[in-house]
């Protein structure tokens, strides 16, 4: 790639007959085309970092310190990195809840509601099972129930979109608030654990029923499940007829209908998968962290997941590294507050810069000749 002339592709074509280079060039062309998706986001990150450095200097703080604390607080030690991974676990799942509907052309932002209701469903289902069902059985049932409830919640938005033409972004957002209200209604009412007077919660599920850590780490199993789901859903969307049909629908739903694709079912299915991912995140919040369902479930993971998914360009395989990057920023945010005496909002400023610059960088795709194959360039 490096020895390929950039500006003058045509003469090279004359020197090297296509036939002898076929195998090599196919790979080179794909590498070239795909590297665009790596180089541009990296460039955007660098620009955002530069802007943020200017911001830091303007308030009289050292950008070098900042970088070293992000490294130390988010990645540099075994503790820091596990802290980062743990924080990224719910983000991976809630990002999937945005990425999968995005593939079928929906901007679904209801992950928070599905997470809260999924977590609540898991916590509520646990109550009659504590002390009766074996932990493994109880946990599997809780996880399934959380996914079903989450799937139903976002799936309902998808159904409204298809059946009634209701804007899915608005309906999923509003359903989030309804979901949180439903959880609060039960947690502060019928399902409240009265031994905990000041913080309304469901009954604690107890240590025996908690999901443990991945052996040898401080990270709970939600992270591993998130990674596995990312790979599985990537294959579902990229390598199966279901995924193909979903992407066709996302490209042009009228054309998909004309082709006889079951557009309605595809939309509801993609939405339900999304909700199930967020519901699973809620299950892990209850079963691996809180040990009970309460208002702390609505911690904003569902909303941060939107950011992660957009940054990953809705590609399930890119979600984990982006989630880890954001998790690391949040994890190091504490150290930055403590050591540099900066307010908590500093990290949000950086996130804001990254988000804006990355979204702006979308317009750069296809503008650099270097990423196009020589043949394409000849045609243009």
């Amino acid at each position, binding site marked *: 790639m490096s020895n390929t002339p950039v500006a003058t592709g045509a003469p090279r074509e004359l020197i090297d007959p296509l036939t002898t280079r076929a195998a090599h060039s196919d790979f080179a062309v794909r590498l070239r085309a795909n590297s665009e998706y790596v180089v541009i986001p990296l460039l955007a990150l660098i620009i955002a970092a530069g802007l943020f450095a200017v911001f830091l200097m303007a308030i009289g703080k050292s950008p070098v310190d900042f970088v070293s604390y992000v490294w130390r607080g988010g990645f540099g*030690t075994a503790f820091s990195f596990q802290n980062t991974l743990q924080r990224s676990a719910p983000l991976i799942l809630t990002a999937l809840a945005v990425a999968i509907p995005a593939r079928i052309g929906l901007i679904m932002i209801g992950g928070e509601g599905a997470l809260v209701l999924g977590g609540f469903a898991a916590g509520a289902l646990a109550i009659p099972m504590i002390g009766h069902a074996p932990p493994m059985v109880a946990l599997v049932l809780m996880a399934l129930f959380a996914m079903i409830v989450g799937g139903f919640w976002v799936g309902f938005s998808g159904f409204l979109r298809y059946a009634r033409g209701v804007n899915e972004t608005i309906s999923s957002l509003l359903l989030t608030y309804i979901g949180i209200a439903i959880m609060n209604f039960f947690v502060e009412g019928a399902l409240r654990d009265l031994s905990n007077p000041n913080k309304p919660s469901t009954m604690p599920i107890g240590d025996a029923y908690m999901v443990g850590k991945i052996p040898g780490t401080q990270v709970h199993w939600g992270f591993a499940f998130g990674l596995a789901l990312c790979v599985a859903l990537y294959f579902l969307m990229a390598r199966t007829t279901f995924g193909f049909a979903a992407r066709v629908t996302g490209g042009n739903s009228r054309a998909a209908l004309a082709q006889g694709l079951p557009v309605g079912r595809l939309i509801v299915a993609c939405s339900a998968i999304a909700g199930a991912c967020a519901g699973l995140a809620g299950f892990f919040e209850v079963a691996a962290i*809180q040990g009970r369902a309460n208002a702390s479930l609505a911690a*904003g993971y569902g909303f941060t997941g939107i950011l992660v998914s957009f940054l990953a360009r809705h590609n399930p395989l890119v979600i984990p590294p982006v989630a880890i990057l954001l998790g690391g920023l949040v*994890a190091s945010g*504490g*150290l930055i*507050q*403590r*050591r540099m005496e900066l307010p*908590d909002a500093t990290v949000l400023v950086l996130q804001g810069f990254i988000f804006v610059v990355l979204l702006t960088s979308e317009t750069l795709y296809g503008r650099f000749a270097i990423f196009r194959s020589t043949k394409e360039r000849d045609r243009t």
Partner: protein
Amino acid sequence: MSVTEFSRRGLLKTAALGVAGATLNLGAVKRTFAAADLTVGIVYVGARDDFGWNQAHAVAIKSLKEVPGVKVVEEENVPETDAVSKSMESMINLDGAGLILATSFGYYTPFVVDLAKKYPDVQFRHAAPLWSQDKDPKNAGSYFGYLNQAHYVDGVAAGLCTKKNKIGFVAAKPIASVLSNINSVLLGARSTNPNATVQVIFTGDWSMPVREAEAANALVDAGCDVITCHVDGPKVVIETAEKRGVMSCGHNASQVPLAPKGFITGAEYKWITIYKGYASDLAEGKSLPNFLTGGYEVDFVQNTPFGAAATEPAQKAALAAIEGLKAKKPIYVGPLKDNKTGKVVIDKTYGNLDPFLDKMDYLLEGVVGSTT
């Protein structure tokens, strides 16, 4: 060192004495801090400048920072999720914190309890009376202040300032600590003004700025000319009262800057007493108390320095009331009836820290409003 230490404490004390008018208690002041460094980590659930709960802690932490040999690391806006356990753990692992102060209710179970088990050499203290001797680790503990004593003083002053004999109270949730504050305002006001009543509106949650403003407005419309509150951030209530041209009493932290005209005084925690006690105990190698709670008698609460609306007699009565509380003069002098059925709910006189009062689920006769 002990000399500078003494004078700084003296200064602090004097500042508090502007209100309290107590004498220096030399026995309690004599604290020596060893050169050995102690790092204290503190986590807040909201912003440090919220004019409320978090600010009360942050103000104390600011003066704890001046204690030689004590380093403080702070983290604000930490949600009640595993984020808080990671923040505390990060303070232990990366900053070497030996004492963790967790200041929000929801931090305790499971986060503080689990971490205390994981790090037996680190001390954890949580700002709510939740620690249980039987269940919880010995390196964890609770601290809390009986803020109702300072609310009682608010009531004493407000009773003399009010012209319409109606005090308005914006409250978050009808739980025992809130109800005790409302009842204490009433009893304080009745002690100086037998005709005083307290009208209460519950907003339903700890932080509902819009409803708090509505409630404050409604109370002013109902004829209250002094407004006070028990919500997380009293900023909105105090500002609304000031805008409506009525007087106000504060809660949690100092709201003097918010009401230059109408402020009387306010009920504040004095966490610094507890925090400095912890620091000196650790410096001296003593074990920390697991459960610390109290009011004026142990200097855990205070009243905000008087604002512009506090009249001369009100100031005098308030200072006298503070002296009384320091001498453990009881607030709940029975028998007292509730405001719903007229039934006697407090059969006799109870001490200010009596556990019987922690189970309060009623409003006293003289309070207008209902817990349900």
